[in-house]
């Protein structure tokens, strides 16, 4: 693993973009991978407006601090979220940002991977935009290897209603595919 231990991950986006679920899926996948995990998330109005976040700490040992201060990996799905939660990033970390979430005219930092996450989700058919979080999760898995694909799939089966499972599994795959050329 290219990151230290513990690994700190942050998902950020607008309320309704599913960043909470992305965090929980990551944590649960980490658990299936045999890691200790802690996940936290925004609450209250913050969670419902433009810059919500969820965070996961993963470690081989018992986790001391549950909150994330300088994440190793940040995933951003909205402009507001990018502005508020996109920084800081640990040295050697990765920032995965939707291509529409970079504020117009701004140049992303060099440690940033810009991907069409939401556009890819939309391309998955009706209701597809609701799976942007899982597309992002796929990219995250492919780019960082922090959790295994198998464990993410197991977490998906546990957390996603059967009727929506197929679409989410396709979103995961699409995210992974999207990220392959960018593998870091």
């Amino acid at each position, binding site marked *: 693993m290219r990151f230290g231990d513990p690994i700190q991950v942050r998902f950020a986006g607008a309320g309704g973009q599913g960043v909470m679920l992305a965090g929980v899926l990551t944590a*649960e996948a980490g658990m299936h991978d045999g890691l200790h995990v802690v996940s936290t998330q925004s609450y209250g109005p913050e969670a419902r407006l433009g810059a919500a976040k969820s965070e996961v700490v993963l470690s081989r040992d018992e986790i001391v601090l549950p909150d994330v201060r300088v994440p190793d990996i940040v995933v951003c799905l909205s402009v507001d979220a990018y502005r508020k939660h996109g920084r800081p990033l640990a040295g050697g970390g990765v920032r995965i940002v939707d291509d529409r979430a970079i504020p117009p005219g701004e140049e992303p930092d060099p440690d940033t991977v810009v991907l069409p996450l939401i556009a890819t989700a939309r391309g998955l058919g009706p209701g597809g935009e609701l799976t942007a979080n899982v597309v992002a999760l796929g990219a995250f898995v492919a780019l960082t290897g922090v959790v295994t694909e198998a464990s993410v799939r197991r977490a998906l089966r546990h957390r996603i209603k059967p009727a929506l499972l197929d679409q989410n599994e396709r979103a995961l795959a699409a995210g992974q595919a999207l990220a392959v050329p960018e593998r870091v």
Partner: protein
Amino acid sequence: MKLIQGNEACALGAMQAGCRFFAGYPITPATEIMEWMARLLPPERGVFIQMEDEIAALAAVIGASWGGAKAMTATSGPGFSLMQENLGYAAMTETPCVIVDSQRGGPSTGLPTLPAQGDVMQARWGSHGDRAAIVLTASTVRDVYEVTVAAFNLSETYRLPVVLLLDAMLSHMRENVELPSLPVVSRRPPAGPGFQPFAGTEFQAFGDGAPFVVTGLAHAASGRPRASDGPNLDRMLRRSIARVETADDVIRYRGIGLEDAEHLIIAYGITARSAAGAVQLLRREGVRAGLLELQTLWPFPERLVRVLAEQVEDVVVAELNLGQLVLPVRAAVGGAAPVRHLGRADGMLFSPEEIAAAVRTTEDREVARA
């Protein structure tokens, strides 16, 4: 192994402990406990009700307890403040029940989504008059489950309202845990005829025997009011306080490196995690630090703290407030070692480094003096 939230662990612990009544009122960051209980209780034929306010929630819990149900409510600071009158009533009437207070930044509406440990003194002293009190806390999601069960058990054993202090971080964070089945203390029915409802810790619910009286006025062993008999009240209060203070199952704590510690850190709840991290850091540097993590805050473990303080060079108390549990620590240590307080009310957790630095400062001072 499951990934669950602190609030969910609390609800699951309550169910495991036999809780069959929950009354609550929405408040961040405790609300999810209520939401879980709303789902978990009906299939077990337990009662869930959302009341009109926190005062009514605790009132309903006490009413349910006298109906024979193990009962709980959960709230946060503002609601806990509102519950203080009925908390005193529960103590006066020796009513077993559990009150969860998930602490957030305060005072007042404060920092509603951020963690704090600012209700530690309130949990003991928030209601008027003297009373016996048991106040517990926890530092991991697994502990939340286990301590919730302990809260019910102690509540039944000592016939007291037991307060469980969580915080916004612990309530909302998810951790991977195993939830074992744990021993449960059942409510003890009267041993025989001539039962006096306030003579001991046996309990009879309304409708389960001869009629009796429950009142928040000072009262006789029969329950009948003795509103101007002071000596009787004094006796009953001292008895109830002595029960918990002389018990051997009330004080719960966990130690790290206490055997050879020269520097004692006292911490509890979410802060104990940071403190454990600090001990790791310090030990790596060769500083003999030890952690006393208190799960029972009240009755305050005076003797334990005193004995430990006598064995170390200094004591650091770390807590997410501006100086609360440090007061009984200082009283208990009584000069046996210098006590330093590390507090904050900014809605943030201590990093292990911050606590380690405080210990190092006392250590440096030692060195400078030597």
